[in-house]
């Protein structure tokens, strides 16, 4: 039992670390597009790792299948949402930050 607890805690800690990184990128990066880079990737991996920790802790039951369903849905839906926001910003003419410009 203790081994399962330790392994799932390690997975959840790694997921929480990547979520913190995504939030720092959301605050630090200079531009709308680069902020989407930070959030779209870090949150996907963080969410997968935390749900994987919950799956290891849970064992096998109906809850496990539902957790897998949440994770798989997010893998397919997250990039689609990111792409929709990116295209909307590009069509509306949000300026692209080049190296050396001022932050916006």
């Amino acid at each position, binding site marked *: 039992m203790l081994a399962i607890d330790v392994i799932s805690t390690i997975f959840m800690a790694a997921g929480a670390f990547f979520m913190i990184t995504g939030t720092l990128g959301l605050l630090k990066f200079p531009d709308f597009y680069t902020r989407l880079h930070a959030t779209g990737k870090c949150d996907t991996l963080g969410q997968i790792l935390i749900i994987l920790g*919950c799956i290891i802790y849970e064992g096998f039951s109906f809850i496990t299948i539902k957790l897998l369903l949440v994770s798989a849905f997010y893998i397919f839906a997250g990039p689609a*949402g990111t792409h929709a926001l990116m295209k909307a910003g590009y069509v509306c003419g949000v300026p692209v930050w080049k190296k050396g410009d001022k932050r916006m």
Partner: protein
Amino acid sequence: MMRAMATRNIFMSSCTSTTMMIISFLAVGMIIAGTILVSSYRAIAGPGTFNRVVAANIIGTKAIVLLIIVGYIIERPHFVDIALMYAILNFIGTIIVAKYLEKGELCSP
């Protein structure tokens, strides 16, 4: 008899938590709540509409994970159903807002 067993089983999780696991679930939940608080700065002060939409999308993603964690803390893992519904609602909301900002209307022929 069957009905009584069923209603009792709703309130019992499939696993009984140890103290260490409750502590680690609490720590991860508090970290995620802190990141929600920090990223709401971008939702309030971000320049322009699009930064606010990004922040709202990210807060929704973190809320899905927070729902699952809270479900384990209070030993009702059936919060997963609510998390799945919230994932679908978050995705549809993001798509609709992006489409509206892109075209200026929702149902173009």
